[in-house]
């Protein structure tokens, strides 16, 4: 286990380095730059700015400098948000996204898993078909449609829920719903199909023959065997959801990290692009490692080597 972890950490560093390198290269191939704007800035001023941020140096030198700094935990200053470091922006924005996203993850788990189990248990009935229609809707309808429809009915027509900001629990309802719709539906479908598989297994017949109740049978014997696909999905899903959705944050005016990704790319805020990408990559790598460890806890047949 210790050896395995060490191997994974080394691999994680290599993965993050590869992501950083590719992003750095791609970013520099995109035309434009951080200091272009409608207002003409004098060439002298542009040159001075570029010199300040080291953008006048050759590509390789900038790349090596960036890597060196990043390894010391210094992700540089934002090129667009005057005077703020990339780390400070991420540490200010991430908690906001993570809170909304975290609630959405919890909701999708707490709803998706039991509903999937129920759909499998009641296969072929009206409940099953209803759930399956709802799940298909949740997967097919894009989040911006969900957001705007929710906003129109609950915010504008009924005036029940506030449409912007994040100041009370009521503010969370619509964004969380919009964020959780897809993962809930997806988890429900995963859960249903793997549960159907497990319900047909011989050991489920054994459980019944022992005289166990349906509840114990389903939630003790079946669930633990059927949950693996959901755990696989959960790793990347948690990373993406906690980091924040650009669309949902934009529509509900949530000051989260999701918006920063797009803002950084549009503004060619090079250091910010690198910072957010590396942050997401690192988060993802950690989540995947956690998924692997959780596997071994849930299914004793899986051994990490």
């Amino acid at each position, binding site marked *: 286990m210790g050896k395995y972890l060490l191997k994974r950490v080394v691999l994680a560093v290599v993965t993050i380095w590869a992501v950083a390198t590719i992003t750095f290269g791609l970013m520099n191939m995109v035309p434009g730059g951080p200091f272009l704007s409608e207002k003409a800035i004098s060439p002298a001023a542009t040159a001075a700015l570029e010199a300040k941020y080291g953008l006048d140096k050759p590509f390789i030198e900038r790349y090596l400098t960036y890597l060196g700094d990043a390894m010391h935990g210094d992700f540089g200053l934002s090129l667009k948000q005057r005077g703020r470091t990339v780390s400070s922006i991420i540490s200010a924005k991430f908690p906001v996204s993570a809170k909304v996203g975290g609630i959405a993850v919890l909701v999708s788990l707490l709803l998706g898993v039991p509903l999937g189990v129920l759909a499998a248990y009641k296969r072929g009935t009206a409940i099953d078909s209803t759930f399956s229609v709802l799940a298909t809707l949740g997967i097919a309808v894009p989040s911006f449609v969900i957001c705007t429809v929710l906003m129109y009915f609950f915010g504008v027509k009924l005036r029940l829920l506030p449409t912007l900001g994040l100041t009370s629990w009521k503010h969370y309802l619509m964004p969380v719903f919009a964020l959780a719709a897809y993962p809930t539906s997806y988890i429900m479908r995963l859960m249903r199909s793997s549960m159907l598989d497990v319900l047909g297994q*011989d050991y489920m017949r*054994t459980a019944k*023959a022992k*005289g*166990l109740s349906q509840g114990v049978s389903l939630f003790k014997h079946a669930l633990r065997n059927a949950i693996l696909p959901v755990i696989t999905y959960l790793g990347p899903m948690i990373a993406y959801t906690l980091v924040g959705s650009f669309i949902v944050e934009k529509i509900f005016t949530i000051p989260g990290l999701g918006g920063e990704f797009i803002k950084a790319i549009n503004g060619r805020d090079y250091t910010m692009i690198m910072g957010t990408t590396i942050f997401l990559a690192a988060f993802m790598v950690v989540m995947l490692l956690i998924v692997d460890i959780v596997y071994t806890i*849930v*299914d*004793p*047949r899986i051994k990490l080597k």
Partner: protein
Amino acid sequence: MTQENTNEKYLVDIRNERLSFFTPAGEVKALNDVSFKMKEGEVLGIVGESGSGKSVTAYSLMGLTAYPGRLIGGTIDFNGHRINDLSESEFREIRGNEVSIIFQDPMTSLNPVYTIGNQIEEVIRLHTDKSKDEARERAKELLTLVGINEPEKRLKQYPHELSGGMRQRVMIAIALACEPKLLIADEPTTALDVTIQAQILELMMELREKLGMAIIMITHDLGIVASMCEKIAVMYAGKIVEYGTTDDIFYNPKHEYTKGLIRSIPRLDAKEHERLVPIEGTPVDMLNPPAGCPFAPRCDNCMKICLKEMPPVTYFDDVHYTQCWLNQKEEFDASSKAGKEGADE
């Protein structure tokens, strides 16, 4: 009625059980008029080919009939319970407690994600009010009983860490945890290799001596029933076509199917070039069973009436009976030879 009396006398009393699977393709009549009785401690073998209804009969006794199967007629009495009338929660009291079962494939019958100990203790704690520690003690006792060494260590192991024979022993331990009145063994050795097979059967017989439970042995291995069972029910197409003591079935078979089965057993005393005699043909299509005797199309001595009408039951003594027109004919010939009225054909 006399129901109470029969309940006292018999552990299992199944009368005219009819069970069908309602599939999209139509009704599959899996059991047609199955009747048999078992005394306490008796060992009954149910033999027959795949799809003849052996397992379905046993499963219905435990309420394990798979969807879309449904009991549509007859009565099943077990240990004073009228199985037909039991609610799901009443059934749960019986399952694993008064009647338990060992399945065919020990490799897949244990839950892979829980330890052996957990799976044995679970059933003990469900049906008794033993504490966690007492249940663990009992589990250890059971593992020793089924001949597993180092029980302490095994309790902490997962199914995938044990061999097939070992897992079947664990299944037996689970089945015997609450000292059931009846143990159903559904082809318990089919998935095991021959040496392990012998060990498991020996173990079952030994445990029966010790604990005195009745056993229903479902198998298509006639060798097993010959050595283990007191009574044998031969099933074909959802019917018990012949029922009798082991001696009746092996030395005095009456039904053509039973005779065929016995002819197809390899014998040690066979001459060198003697061939085994297979039963020709294929099993009946249970979706469209024939009007007459289901075995008629494969029977060497098939008569006209066999294709038209189901034969009535012919009793030879209190135990031995069969459902075959040939025996009916013999009886008929005997009675007409004796002289009296011939009755219409």
